[in-house]
């Protein structure tokens, strides 16, 4: 197997893992200010308490893997999207601190401040992730050397902005469905109502993104013409999405959450399928940055594949262990945030 393709796939797995796992904890941050009452807010926050940090490691590992496997893409995207990346970094720092420090004082001002910062940083990070993905897939102005030359203004494209909003709605829906599993009583009924609203927003934005894509980003369909079998994926995404209201009505929260995971994973896969074999699509006359041009040497890709083969089962083992230890409804105790 071509190692370049393998690494494209592995990065896709890491990104999907990140979207599915950190998706719900970013979403919890977006929903958090709508929760009334301090005890309720703590319950919501502690539903991700032991998990958010591990979820974020998927992003860190994605970053490291991108750096080592495709340094050209890593350098182009991060230096090209300079200020947005800085905003994401500041948001991730602010988010971690808000979660960690919110509970350290009983002062109303203190908690109000961290609640606001938790919400804002979660929202900003999700939005910018979406916009960045939209730009990479939709195409940006590259120089012949593969450097980004479009400037800050070049990132505000309708397609990218729509993907950003889609990410926010998706995270909110994913989080509401997750919270359903972790909460009880009145609070659980409240998040169920939010799940419905976020679901409709998510579906609507999916249609908007699809419409813009069909109208103004034709290159996204090239791979679908080459390999028509990929059309199975959008169909599966639609089925997974349709299963969410069905499971909600039948009161099967696990199925609803699983369907949400499947739809987010499916959308990430769709983005990757449209992108392949590029990593950054060029909207100028210069060629796109593809998985051969952007890659490290063959021997490094092979070495990294060995590291991944040893590491991935370990990662799966830790992740399952932690989710197992912290299964069930949230309970506040002396160790909670």
């Amino acid at each position: 197997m071509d190692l370049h393709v393998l690494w494209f796939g592995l990065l896709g797995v890491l990104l999907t893992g990140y979207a599915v796992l950190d998706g719900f904890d970013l979403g919890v941050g977006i929903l958090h200010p709508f929760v009334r009452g301090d005890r309720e807010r703590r319950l919501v926050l502690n539903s991700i308490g032991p998990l958010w940090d591990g979820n974020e490691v998927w992003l860190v590992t994605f970053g490291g893997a991108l750096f080592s496997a495709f340094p050209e893409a890593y350098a182009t995207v991060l230096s090209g999207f300079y200020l947005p990346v800085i905003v994401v970094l500041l948001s991730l720092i602010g988010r971690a601190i808000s979660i960690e420090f919110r509970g350290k004082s009983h002062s109303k001002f203190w908690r109000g401040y961290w609640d606001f910062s938790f919400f804002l940083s979660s929202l900003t990070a999700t939005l910018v992730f979406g916009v960045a993905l939209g730009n990479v897939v939709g195409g940006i102005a590259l120089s012949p050397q593969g450097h980004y030359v479009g400037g800050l203004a070049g990132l505000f494209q309708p397609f990218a902005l729509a993907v950003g909003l889609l990410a926010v709605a998706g995270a909110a829906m994913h989080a509401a469905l997750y919270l359903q599993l972790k909460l009880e009583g009145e609070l659980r009924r409240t998040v169920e109502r939010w799940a419905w609203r976020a679901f409709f927003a998510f579906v609507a934005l999916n249609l908007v993104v699809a419409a813009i894509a069909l109208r103004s980003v034709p290159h996204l369909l090239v791979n679908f013409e080459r390999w028509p079998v990929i059309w199975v994926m959008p169909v599966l995404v639609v089925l997974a999405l349709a299963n969410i209201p069905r499971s909600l009505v039948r009161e099967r929260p696990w199925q609803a959450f699983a369907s949400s995971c499947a739809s987010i994973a499916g959308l990430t896969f769709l983005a990757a399928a449209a992108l392949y074999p590029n990593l950054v699509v060029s909207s100028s006359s210069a060629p796109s940055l593809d998985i051969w041009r952007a890659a490290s040497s063959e021997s490094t890709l092979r070495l990294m594949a060995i590291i991944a083969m040893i590491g991935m089962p370990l990662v799966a083992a830790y992740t399952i262990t932690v989710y197992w230890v912290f299964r069930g409804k949230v309970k506040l105790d002396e160790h909670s945030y």
Partner: protein
Amino acid sequence: MDLDLVELSRAQFALTVMFHYLFPPLSIGLGLLMVIMEGLFLRTGDPQYAVMTRFWTRIFAANFAVGVATGIAMEFQFGTNWAAYSRFVGDVFGSALAAEGIFAFFLESGFLAVLVFGWDRVGPRMHFFSTVMVFLGSTFSAVWIVIANSWQHTPAGYRLVEHEGVLRAEITDFWAMVFNPSSMHRLGHVLLGSFILGAFFVMSISAWYLLHRRHEAFARKSFAVALVVGALASWGELVSGHSQARALAHNQPAKLAAFEGHFVTADHGTEMWLFGWPNVDEQRVDYGLAIPKMLSFLVYDDFERPVTALDRFPARDRPPVVVPFVSYHVMVGLGMLFIGMTSLALVLWWRGRLFSQRWLLWAFVVAVLGPYLANQAGWVSAEVGRQPWVVYGLLRTSDAVSAMVPPEQVLISIIAFGVLYLALLAVWLYVINEKIRRGPQEPESLGAAPSGPGESLVGAAAGAGVGRGGHSYTETE
């Protein structure tokens, strides 16, 4: 305004990496102490050790969170500000970073959840296992990042290849890259420096409790464990530093010359400056005191063999001298102080008089600043001493930046990081201060702690400080 992209990017990296490095060494050092304390609890069954583990774990958790958050920024900053560097080293540096992510970070963050939140959810042995794994994870993290950084100082196991019209480094021998000439020396030095910080941190807070006659049994035991670790690590750091300096004379002679303020190569043994101020214009050290021929002896075991000075390097390859000289001497001086303090404390402890020496306890309260400063000073020496290279002998710092990024945007990012970090530091100090003020639980309350739905014992009010709000910065008892 005329903004220099390279200098701004360097300033931004210095700000973010130095701020980040306030936290990981404490995580590593405190992690080791927690492993020892919890191990002692499992061995002896003494509930005081369980109290100790729990208290230090709380401080560890707050520290760890800030370390992780500021570390994420570091990982992406290679790409944002140093795109040319990233393209040059991605093949080599990236693999170490990816290995760090997959082996270290997942291990740490996974078991951290069990360590902090899992007291009532897993058995004591599984909990101890988690503590060990978190410590190992943070150590692995140091291993990989120090390997990657050391490769920048002493590149090995690579070749230069043209890719897309630009030269870049590619790995030819992974293990030669991992065990490059400076990596193990530097790793040992970094880890011991972290253990010293962990030990002095615990000793500082314990001494504070002893001076205020609070939690005395807890404080004595914590102090004793930390003292033993601190003394061993301080002596070990001397050995490590010595061997590192000898390797430096061979690997990066210009850097050693900058550390020592050694401008002109002589034909006899080289002196060692105990202190002074390098005068670059006049090529000499002012206001200083030197031991003749000492540097030659320390480096070569030979009083007469001259050490290479800066004059043997072309002017454009010479590092700056003032910053490395000062930071290096601060680090070494502090290292000697740690050896002196811990050795004295050990002797007094042996004679059973340690905890009545109030002046020494006060000295230990303040001394925690020393290892913080020494860790920073050591890295400043290492990194500024490597200039003008970002990868020694291969890539100049000035060629490594993201040339496409407008300098104004870098300035904006410096201001934004600066403001956020100042606020963060203030909050961190406040939170740590609150935890110290509240203090550990008493051992007898531990057995009675509710393990079920402890809704009444709301979070922050845990343990001894139930119901005591206390939001004042000034109220430090």
